[in-house]
């Protein structure tokens, strides 16, 4: 019995240490959460454009690639070609003005565009992250967010 007291004291100390460490960890997480909330609230407010059509950046469009559509190339195939070539603004212009493209086909192209745009090194050229907006008869439809970052002055 008497020999178990030092063991019990040792266990209590360990437990106290564990509780103390847990408290500081929770404190750090809480401070981090408040910091993140403060940072998000103070982030730059995006400038919203009236419509997606006005988010187009003509300077970024590849002229020869875009003109292939006027020469008879199907729009959807051309959009995929543009995305594969890294000409995302060209692909965006094609998809934006293709009135017949709906549903899963449009969603698939938007998804590819979104992946490409996220990989861009210095922000976007007027088109940022996609949001879901149901339009298509058979499923969700991805429509681009109309946010135009105020800091994007490169183009």
């Amino acid at each position, binding site marked *: 019995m008497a020999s178990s007291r030092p063991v019990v004291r040792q266990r209590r100390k360990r437990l106290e240490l564990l509780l103390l460490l847990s408290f500081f960890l929770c404190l750090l997480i809480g401070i981090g959460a408040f910091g993140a909330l403060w940072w998000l609230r103070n982030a730059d407010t*995006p400038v*919203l454009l*009236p*419509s*997606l*059509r*006005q988010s*187009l950046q*003509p*300077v*970024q*469009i*590849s*002229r*020869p690639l*875009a*003109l*292939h559509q*006027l*020469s*008879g190339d199907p729009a959807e195939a051309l959009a995929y070609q543009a995305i594969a070539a890294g000409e995302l603004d*060209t692909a965006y*212009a094609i998809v*934006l*003005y293709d*009135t*017949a493209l*709906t*549903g899963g086909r449009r969603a698939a192209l938007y998804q590819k565009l979104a992946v490409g745009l996220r990989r861009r090194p210095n922000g976007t050229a007027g088109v940022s992250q996609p*949001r*879901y*907006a*149901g*339009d*298509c*008869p*058979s*499923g*969700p*439809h991805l*429509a681009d*967010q*109309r*946010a135009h970052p105020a800091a994007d002055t490169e183009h």
Partner: protein
Amino acid sequence: MLRNPFFANTGAALPTGLFMLSDPVETAPELDVATARRQLAAQALVARITALAYVQNEADFQAGIAAEQQELIQTLLAEDQLRRLALENTANTDISLNQQFAILQEYRNWSALKVRISSLGFGFSLVPEWEANRDALLQELATITRNLDTISEELINRQETDADKAAMRVEKLMWLALQSELGLYPNQPLDELGNQLRFAQDALAEQGVPLALRVLFDSTATPPGIRLQDNNVR
């Protein structure tokens, strides 16, 4: 949401069928010729632009492509003239509603192309005349879309079952909402379309076809627009 293993989607996918009601009309031979000429002119311009890829100075580049660009402009204007004529002729000829639907869709696609050209959607100034009249072109696009809405509503009302009518009405409204979001249905308030969509989706649910993915107009979203509806909150 769709990948959530705990989420059991119990609704149905919206059946498509509205745009299958269009009955394409054979185009006039002169329009086919005009379209072919425009495509050839575009190919020539692409070849010229590719050949001048080394030119850094914009003024020299513009001078270099001037002839091919002018040719393309002329073919576009000629094709536009013929397409307008074809559209006007539909009022004078005895064609079915399904054929009118097809013709309007075709002209709307052309109208959207003109808006794209006027907005420098091909990367540079292609037809200055259309750029100067962009507002008029947008107005024309809005008018054509409204006419398409009217004709499609008439086609919908001719369907046999109420379920088919309800499904096509939802399909039509979703398509119009998409056009509005893209900026290709100018001056059409999205919240109005959102209200119509809400009623149409409710009507479809009453026919025993509750949609798996309902949409609604979310005025609190940034920016406000059509969003997928959380099925747990109605």
